[in-house]
């Protein structure tokens, strides 16, 4: 255990954000890091619980050995701590930045949990800086070849695991850069693309080949001993209103992809929000990313519409520890919007009713309507509560409803009613030598869940391949 009384002596201190008005000037990383002394105080807060909920099913989906590496870090044994972390966590530099840290909410210190995510990030960045992270080239190779379709978190996690198991892994992606949503979904300020590239180069050095700008088809099943589909849940939920084809109406992922491309190429985004009134539909993480990106592009105003009522400030009785707390969260984009516009950009219990367009079928304004929850639990519009918002750019971040239809067609698959490819036995095996993992398998979720799912699928594939002849 770190220090028996650490949690009493030190308060939780997170890695601070850069100041809003400063960080809005660029697309660079949001957080600053903190020195080793702070890390030692923060790890001292870990209590080495008899039952560590942080690594239970309520906490880390990867079941990271959090109390153990916290303790090692507290004792200054950074390298051992990093090795302990890497036993379960494939890409701490990603999760250390973008994970919502279920572990910290499941921590026995409850709403004051240990800063596991910052500790994790410190460990991996220290390891990279000191050269402890080197390509781990498998000592022996099997004769098996595996294709991983999609290079998002689950695909990369599976590829990494399978490669370490000795199989020859090829990652296929239709985009021009690997990383999936890590590359083009998450904006650069949250996860700098250099960090993603650094990991990809490391994986290439370990023997994984990346095949980019390539569409996958059923012919892969002939060429490889196993194929893992990690194509995500990319079909966005659209709004149930007319004129969605109007100019200036875009899905969030398309907008964010264009923005990241522009950052990477140093040009202006094709879908830039510069000088526009932006409305984002959807109050989730993606919506927030849109707010932050639009502000950085220099929008005139930004508003975020959320269907659900404003969440309470504290846990309600029906939402006890160690469950994920359903409380009001104000993310970086919303903080930035407040700093610029003087108010929180979110409007609750409201959705779009109609889209108003000009003669060239370009969006000019929105008609919104308030929603009210009925006794049967359904949200119904309230008559006469309409409001008009000026809008030149409407970004739809209303979630995803499953895997794209063309992928399913290619492999003659059918998804369930929630757009998932979930075999009835709960496994990742779709039949023959075809497997699936990540959001495609279990629906849209967190990066860390995708990593865990990718590794689980990799283990299944490994078992499947081992059962065949001529493994070595």
């Amino acid at each position: 255990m770190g220090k028996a009384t650490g949690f009493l002596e030190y308060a939780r201190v997170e890695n601070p954000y850069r100041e809003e008005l400063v960080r809005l000037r660029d697309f660079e990383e949001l957080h600053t890091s903190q020195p080793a002394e702070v890390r030692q105080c923060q790890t001292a807060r870990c209590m080495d619980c008899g039952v560590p909920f942080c690594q239970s099913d309520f906490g880390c989906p990867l079941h990271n050995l959090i109390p153990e590496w916290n303790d090692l870090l507290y004792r200054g044994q950074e390298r051992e701590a990093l090795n302990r972390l890497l036993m379960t966590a494939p890409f701490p530099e990603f999760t250390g930045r973008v994970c919502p840290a279920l572990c910290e909410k499941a921590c026995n210190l409850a709403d004051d949990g240990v800063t596991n995510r910052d500790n994790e990030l410190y460990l991996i960045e220290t390891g990279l800086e000191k050269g402890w992270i080197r390509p781990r080239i498998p000592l022996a190779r099997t004769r098996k070849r595996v294709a991983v379709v999609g290079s998002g978190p689950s695909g990369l996690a599976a590829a990494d695991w399978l490669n370490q198991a000795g199989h020859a892994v090829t990652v296929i992606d239709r985009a021009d850069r690997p990383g999936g949503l890590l590359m083009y979904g998450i904006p650069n300020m949250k996860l700098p693309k250099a960090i993603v590239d650094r990991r990809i180069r490391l994986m290439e050095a370990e023997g994984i080949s990346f095949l980019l700008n390539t569409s996958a088809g059923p012919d892969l099943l002939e060429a490889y001993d196993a194929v893992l589909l990690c194509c995500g849940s990319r079909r966005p939920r659209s709004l149930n209103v007319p004129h969605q084809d109007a100019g200036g109406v875009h899905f969030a992922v398309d907008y964010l992809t264009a923005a990241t491309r522009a950052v990477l190429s140093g040009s202006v985004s094709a879908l830039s929000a510069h000088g526009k009134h932006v409305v984002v539909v959807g109050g989730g993480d993606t919506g927030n990313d849109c707010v932050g990106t639009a502000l950085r592009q220099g929008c005139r105003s930004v508003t975020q519409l959320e269907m659900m009522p404003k969440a309470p400030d504290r846990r309600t009785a029906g939402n006890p520890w160690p469950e994920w707390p359903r409380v009001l969260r104000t993310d970086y984009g919303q903080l930035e919007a407040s700093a610029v516009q003087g108010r929180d950009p979110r409007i609750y219990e409201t959705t779009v009713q109609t889209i108003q367009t000009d003669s060239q079928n370009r969006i000019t304004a929105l008609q919104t309507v308030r929603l009210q929850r009925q006794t049967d639990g359904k949200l119904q519009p309230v008559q006469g509560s309409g409001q008009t918002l000026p809008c030149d750019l409407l970004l739809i971040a209303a979630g995803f409803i499953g895997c794209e239809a063309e992928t399913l067609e290619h492999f003659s698959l059918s998804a369930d009613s929630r757009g998932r490819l979930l075999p009835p036995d709960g496994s990742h095996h779709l039949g023959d030598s075809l497997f699936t993992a990540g959001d495609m398998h279990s629906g849209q979720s967190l990066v860390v869940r995708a990593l865990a799912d990718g590794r689980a699928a990799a283990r299944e594939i490994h078992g499947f391949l081992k059962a065949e002849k001529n493994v070595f």
Partner: protein
Amino acid sequence: MNRLGGKSNSGEGGELPERFGTEFNSAIKQVASGRFGVTRDYLLSAQEIQIKMAQGAKPGEGGHLPGAKVTESVAKTRCSTPGISLISPPPHHDIYSIEDLAELIYDLKCVGEQAKITVKLVSSTGVGTIASGVAKAGAGGILISGGEGGTGAAPMSSVHHAGLPWEIGLAEAHQVLCRNRLRQKVTLETDGKLMTGHDVMVALLLGAEEFGFATAPLITLGCRMMRVCHLGTCPFGIATQNPELRKRFIGKPEYVERFMLFIAGQMRRIMAKLGARTVDELVGRSDLLKMKADAKLDLSDLIGFARNTHFFPDAKHDFHLSERTDVRLFQDHVHLMTTDRAFGTMLRGERHIQAQGCGGQSFGAFLPQGQQITLYGVANDYLGKGLSGGTLAVCPPVDSLWRQEDTLIGNVALYGATSGRAFIAGMAGERFAVRNSGAWAVVEGVGDHGCEYMTGGRVAVLGPVGDNFAAGMSGGIAWVLDEKDDLQDRMNPGHVQLYPVSQEDAQELKLLLQLHEQATGSKKARDILKRFDAYLPKFKAVISDEYLSYLKGA
């Protein structure tokens, strides 16, 4: 538990006297090897007195309460000194055989006449034989404790590797007791990770009629199994004395009540399925248990013997207490024989008894304030056990051939004494004043292991001491007249060091010697008092490091 009609257990640490007689009073009072806080009032407040022979999760190990956890209120409850570690000896120093256990049961019965005396045993093979002995020794109940329980302070190695499941011990105890026709004399209880109504039903069918819970109710009160009970840093304010942390405690008695009602509800449903109306008719009905078809162990010995026998009040052990000498004593003079065990324990009112002859075992055990017994003669083992304020004096008859070096009282005198005085004008046996936590005593020589595990009080030894003196002694002061200058070699230096007697202490010592001389007419004391200043440098004070720093601080 009191609201529910159940019984709460104080544990070995004693209980605050403010709670006695209120709703907070624990019905079961435990008497463990440490005898912490075992005063007469404590025993009198109990419906049931439980002798803890060992703990299921860590059989054979003593406990250790770190000094940091001994706060004012803990020290008061345990009759010890704040800030000083408390060490429970692994064995009971007054129990080395089943007869000794019978003696302790008898002593406790003499104190708490109305209370049931139960004995906590640990599940093990052969526990049936032990249980039979305990039943014959007069216990009203037997607890078979399983190895699956244990607090967060129990060492991990013990939790994982020590102890056996309660099922094994319980089945054996029930079967052996039934076969020896002893089962109806006692109630049979089990504990050690009973978590559900189903667990309780299994215990019932294997032969238990009382059931103990600890972990599960703790969880209902907010315990999250941090395993830091011994560190005093429980973040949920349960196993801690830190007022800041105690504020975090969110438990309410209602939670425990509701949990226990759920247990009862589940039991009732299972009983309904079995077609049973009462718990009594299911005790020991192990024929209702079935082995799983794919069981990897053959458990047929556990369930192969079904007898529906349970406690029957008329079969209770008769202690013949009304025939005791001290109950029938109307004058203040009495002649004693060794069969007069625990003499004085049942005396009523403030009295000064002059006795002569040979005091039996546990002479003056748990003697309360206001009572004084002077014995002209000798006494057996366990003199002044658990002394609670009374005064005992033992001196050889004036006209006898008694010599100074002859042993006057037996072993293990003043074990677990909490207050009171004892004056022994002669040699004591081994383990004099073991686990003394507050009594003041004078003795003119002790055998081996004197003042072992002592935590408080004062002991003056005016003669030779045996080996291993003051082993594990964490509190109190022993003044030893070291005429041969060999005390340094005789004592156990683990916790204590020798010091000269300080000026204030010299006054206390002198007073104590004067009282000794008055009570016993001791020649030795008279000699010393005559030339006190000359004798004083020969006295050495034996004090533990912890206690010394406490005295300096105070």
